[in-house]
């Protein structure tokens, strides 16, 4: 599905990603963990196409295409989805309206018919139920006045509406109480299929009790310094990130 090869990226001349290698296949769930500031959000931003970051080296292949060559909107239309760590508030733009535009732009890109009003409403109903998002929120301005938990659920709602091939969840669990965490995880699990894949970025092992990863990677100082199975997450939780830091002092 996605093959990241020796990816280096910098901002304002400062190198943040220092050679990332990662391959995710269809049907897999990968977790990326790591202390604050190690570059997890930078990696997701670079994959989603944020222009502030400059890719200085390496390549990313997404479903056979050169991902770095595509505009952010084309990446999304090809099936990449990023659930933002900090979802943006957009006053005046309705959640529903913008999602309809997004779905139709994607369909046009794939040479498909636009979604009918009836089909769309059906989707909204089904997918908002999936993450227990109040239907009133679906009709409000994008994220405006939403609580932290509502914003995160809205991200997963959008993910459900767009049915991406690869979803990157950037700290979707941060700040969620246990009920909200369960709802979000449950939503993600229901959307899982042999044809799509998920990268879960998290700080805490807690989420991985609900979304069980096939692989766990530790990102530190712009590099993946450790990879393993789901037991690596438990080990990390027990030993803390200082363990990683002390092992990688030379970085």
């Amino acid at each position, binding site marked *: 599905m996605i093959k990241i090869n020796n990816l280096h990226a910098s901002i304002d001349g400062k190198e943040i990603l220092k050679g990332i290698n990662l391959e995710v296949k269809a049907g897999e769930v990968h977790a990326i963990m790591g202390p604050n500031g190690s570059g997890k959000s930078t990696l997701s931003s670079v994959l*989603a196409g944020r222009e502030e970051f400059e890719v200085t080296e390496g390549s990313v292949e997404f479903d056979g295409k050169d991902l770095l060559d595509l505009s952010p909107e084309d990446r999304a239309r090809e099936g990449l989805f990023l659930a933002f760590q900090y979802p943006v508030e957009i006053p005046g733009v309705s959640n529903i309206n913008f999602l309809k535009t997004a779905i139709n732009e994607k369909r046009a890109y794939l040479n498909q018919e636009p979604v009918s009003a009836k089909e769309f409403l059906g989707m909204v109903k089904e997918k908002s139920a999936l993450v227990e998002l109040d239907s009133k929120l679906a009709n409000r301005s994008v994220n405006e006045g939403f609580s932290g938990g509502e914003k995160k659920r809205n991200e997963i709602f959008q993910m459900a509406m767009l049915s991406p091939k690869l979803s990157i969840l950037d700290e979707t669990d941060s700040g969620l109480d246990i009920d909200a965490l369960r709802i979000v995880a449950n939503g993600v699990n229901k959307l899982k299929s042999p044809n799509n894949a998920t990268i879960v970025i998290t700080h805490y092992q807690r989420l991985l009790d609900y979304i069980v990863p096939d692989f766990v990677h530790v990102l530190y100082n712009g590099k993946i310094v450790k990879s393993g199975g789901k037991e690596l997450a438990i080990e990390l939780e027990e030993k803390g990130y200082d363990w990683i830091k002390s092992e990688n002092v030379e970085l």
Partner: protein
Amino acid sequence: MTTAELTKKDTFLAALSPLQFNEDSYFEGLRNNAKNELAELDFPTSKTEYWKYTRLGKIVNNTYTLGQPDKIDITNFLIPNLEAHVLVVINGYYSPELSNFTEIDGVTLTSLSAAKKQGFEGLKKHFNQFTQDKKEIFLALNNAFHTDGIYLEVAKNNNVEKPYHILNITTGNNTISQSRNLFIGNVGSQVKIIESFINVGGEKNFNNHVSEFFVAENTHLEYNKIQDKKENNFSIATEQVYQEANSNFTINTATFNGALVRNNLNIEVDASNCETNLNGLYLGKNKDHIDNHTVVDHKKPHCNSNEVYRGVLDDESTGVFNGKVFVRQDAQITNAFQQNNNILLSDNATANSKPELEIYADDVKCSHGSTTGQIDEEAIFYLQSRGISKKGALKLMINAFAKDALERISIETLHEYIDAKIEEELS
């Protein structure tokens, strides 16, 4: 020094002097007063504070011919699906042939010139009351040389459901037109008015317009103003509004185009328990220059005013906003809210924004604010990351920003018309 400017004024007055008005001595007297006032006034210069950000060279250096009655096809200017009485004023002359309305009980509706001939009581009482001796040359010019316009008076306790749509049109080239309206809502009445300012064909036409509003006790009056003059045309419009107790006045101004547009909106809230809403949207392109100067004068207690003006400025266009709110010593428990927001779509667009509050009472709630900025790039990226093109994302955001300003338009079909125009202008 001022000799050159005096000459410009003389040229202006010379162009207007052939106008003949066969009016009775009362109205003739009003015009003569204004002519005397004009002798003392001059065109504003860059030093005139009130006109600081709006250069009038384009208007005052041009040589005009007097507007004449004209006949054109108006179908394109009607608002789709809107049930309204239609009144047409062309080049400052009322056109009975093109107008289409039904007489209703409790509404006096005529051209202003016909109203003067009939000497209506309401007319004598309110006409020119709010516009005299303001020391504003364009107001004085209109006082002295206005040709015609609409006189609309709603009798006590009449609720007029069907809106009035005035088409105020200029045609030809270098035409000067000075139209003039008087709207009177008597005690407990309700009425909605739309006025579209349009230019057909040529360029360098100048419309110097004045509307007066008398909003009596417990009256609800809504005035929606659409300025849509393509090509290189100029307009100055002045609204003088007087509100009595428990009244509600709403004005929505949508300016889509205009080489030089200046709106002077002056609202005197002279009794308690009033509500005043003044909202505007301006979309500037090319070298458009759009200037809104507003004054709300709260003189008595327990009143609310809400003001939101928003501008989207592209290319080399300029938006000017100056909003003054006075809260006089007597006007305790006033809530006055004022805001001006501008989005610049190009590096060469400019916004000059000056919200001003002058408060002389102590128990009041007032706020004002002004923002000028580019579109939020984070939001654009967020929308793009969902599969929306950069252009589509911009459009969604600008539409949202723009539409927000005109939420108080209560006529559904007009709302749809304006939303569609916004989309059209921004695409």
